[in-house]
């Protein structure tokens, strides 16, 4: 069975600094999707970034980028120039690329604090 592990329950970073959130996963599939979702205090789940496993190039979205290491099954999120609005829970998630099996598996989350 697929699993997603986020080993850092909480992290803190100084405003304007860079922080990296870790995520590892376990799967026997060769093609799949990985996601990072942000959940601010409003509880709304917001997609931050998406990576397709067959693409070797790391995904980037403005200040957010990932380090995707397929062989190591690692999918870390880097936030550059941290801002107060980045404070939230961040969930790493995995999805198989199989029709009619669109079940996303979430990690337990990392709570990110931004220090002014």
């Amino acid at each position, binding site marked *: 069975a697929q699993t997603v592990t986020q080993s850092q329950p909480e992290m803190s970073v100084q405003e304007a600094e860079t922080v990296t959130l870790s995520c590892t996963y376990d799967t026997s599939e060769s093609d799949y*999707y990985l996601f990072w979702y942000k959940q601010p205090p*409003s*509880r709304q789940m917001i997609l931050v970034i998406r990576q397709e496993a067959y693409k070797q190039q790391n995904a980037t979205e403005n200040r957010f980028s990932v380090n995707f290491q397929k062989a190591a099954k690692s999918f870390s999120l880097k936030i550059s120039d941290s801002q107060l609005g980045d404070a939230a829970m961040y969930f790493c998630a995995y999805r198989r690329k199989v029709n009619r099996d669109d079940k996303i598996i979430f990690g337990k989350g990392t709570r990110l604090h931004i220090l002014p």
Partner: protein
Amino acid sequence: NAGVTQTPKFRILKIGQSMTLQCTQDMNHNYMYWYRQDPGMGLKLIYYSVGAGITDKGEVPNGYNVSRSTTEDFPLRLELAAPSQTSVYFCASSYEVSGSYEQYFGPGTRLTVT
């Protein structure tokens, strides 16, 4: 587009009561999902649907029922509420086209069973 909407936002139930959590999406997404999020935890899938008339159990379906009579609506029914069902419930939807597999979430419903 309003995206995914959920009602109510908050609800307090007494043990043994029943209720329906409503979920509607206006994006013509074929897939819809119900998750629960317990304090300090990630999301666990309760039920999902790949299209109108088709539903499947997720990881934690016991105590819940769903129906999908239309593409837009995916209500979650709680029968005989129990304190273990105190949680935040999220509805989500997605559209199965290449390169667009992310799920869009509603704002959540906070349910307390006492």
